[in-house]
């Protein structure tokens, strides 16, 4: 299949920040490469400077899901290009790199620095952070989203995917991002959530607030993909609690081109392969009916 000019073996990819292919290779060895579960690999979000991430605790299990507040730990742009990119280039699938800045200038340096690399097939823009100049979260403001995409679009020929948040009504943001030049959209990101420590009555997570994922959010993802696909014509990468081929097929039915697996990979590292096979069977039966 084809996604924004990139040839993919099947429609199942990973959600950014839910699978670290470098760490997984340490755990599983080269069998990971031989049985790579995704048709493209989406990196965790790269920021301009190194970040340690949020103080622990960072996780809380909820009914049918989990809350995380990881805080985008990473080596920064230079560290990513120097040490991670060569290892990610060894993966047997195209590489999509997620980036996040806090201003147009930071985003521009990331898009130019990473978009120019031959190892990179596409970029995903994580717009969940406030613009330091306006104070507005880019992904929550149509004007900010349109303006950012207009600024970044001329800087690279690679496809730009915008990751939408479920914490605001996504359709207006989706329309604005596409008007600005987005080639594709991905949704949903995690839902803002809080866990209370039963022992203290205070927030459990070190950063107090986190994001909810897992089967608990699947119904919300279905609705938001439906709403966004109704107003834009670009490809959609859909995600949110996908744990089976049926769940993936449902999202494709609502207008998705690709489906990302996230939290389910925590429970089964090879979940992507299983879901791709289940989806293939469902689509084959449907097309022969």
């Amino acid at each position, binding site marked *: 299949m084809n996604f924004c000019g990139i040839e993919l073996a099947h429609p199942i990819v990973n959600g950014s920040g839910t699978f670290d292919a470098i760490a997984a290779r340490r755990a599983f060895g080269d069998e990971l490469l031989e049985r790579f579960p995704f048709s493209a690999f989406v990196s965790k979000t790269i920021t301009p400077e190194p970040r340690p991430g949020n103080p622990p605790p960072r996780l809380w299990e909820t009914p049918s899901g989990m809350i995380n507040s990881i805080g985008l730990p990473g080596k920064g742009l230079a560290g990513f290009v120097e040490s991670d990119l060569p290892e990610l280039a060894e993966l047997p699938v195209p590489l999509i790199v997620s980036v996040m800045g806090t201003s147009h200038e930071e985003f521009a340096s990331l898009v130019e620095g990473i978009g120019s690399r031959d190892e990179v097939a596409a970029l995903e823009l994580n717009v969940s952070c406030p613009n330091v100049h306006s104070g507005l979260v880019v992904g929550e403001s149509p004007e900010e989203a349109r303006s950012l995409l207009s600024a970044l679009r001329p800087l690279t020929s690679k496809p730009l995917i915008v990751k939408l948040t479920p914490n605001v009504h996504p359709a207006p943001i989706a329309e604005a991002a596409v008007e600005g030049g987005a080639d594709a959209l991905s949704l949903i990101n995690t839902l803002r959530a809080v866990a209370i420590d039963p022992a203290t009555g205070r927030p459990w997570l070190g950063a107090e607030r986190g994001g909810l994922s897992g089967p608990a959010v699947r119904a919300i993802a279905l609705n938001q993909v439906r709403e966004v696909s109704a107003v834009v014509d670009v490809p959609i990468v859909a995600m949110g609690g996908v744990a089976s081929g049926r769940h993936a097929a449902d999202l494709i039915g609502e207008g998705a081109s690709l489906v990302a697996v996230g939290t389910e990979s925590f429970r089964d590292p090879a979940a992507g*392969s299983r879901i791709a096979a289940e989806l293939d069977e469902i689509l084959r039966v449907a097309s022969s009916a």
Partner: protein
Amino acid sequence: MSAGAASAKLGARVAAPFGRRACRVTRNVASGGYRVFSVLDADGPEPAAGQFYMLSAARGWGGGDGRPYLARAFSVADCDPEPNGVRLDFLVHDVGPGTGRLVALEEGEELWVTGPLGRPFSAPGELSPGAAGAVLVGGGIGVAPLALWRRRLSGIGIPSRVLLGYRDRERSGGQDLFRCSEMRIASEDGHQGHRGYVTDLLAVLLDGDDAQSAAVYSCGPPAMLEAVRAMCAERGVSCELAMEAPMACGFGACFGCAVPLAGGDGYLRLCVDGPVVRGDEVASAL
């Protein structure tokens, strides 16, 4: 000592088969106030001591309130090759929805298993050039990985002294996993051994003349681990700690199991950079 362990370098990380696999539960027995359950891993390698597995029951995982949802991390307490695979033993105490399901596993049930994962214990000589023996300090359910480590060390002729501590009778067990009689026990309620902390026993041992000739290996509750770390640091004795942190995946994907590095320079991921860490790698074991 098993053939698998003999072929792998002591202390070398063993890679896991990719993905999770269904393993049959072969046994579930009481061990003091804890349970030891065994599974037959038909397709996995023999783990190194200190490595862990992510476990979830194939049925009944996610009860009426939707928990447990994530798999749970367990150090392997013992293992042996068997005709149809490797038998893995895990020590479990019922403290929540995940462990509550695991203690109730019945023979013949299926368990989802991913592993072995993480960094194992290192040989004493690798931790400290002068170390020829090991001191194993376990607390509560944390005695589990030390049992397998004692067997592996014994298999290559490295002597271990075993110190185990428990809070009370209900929260004790796993001593049978050590298969040796030379253990010193401490209990806070005095139901067996020394009344007090296992670190009381460690202090006596480390204040002896030959403290520098051993490396210390410890696993247990955070306060105990931190006491062990601090005692070893004060005396210049090398130690490794098998730590625990909330963990969603076990293979570096979720970034949940962050532990602050010594020197304030960010975090390590306990699942891939640990769970066994040198005492001087972390800011604190708390």
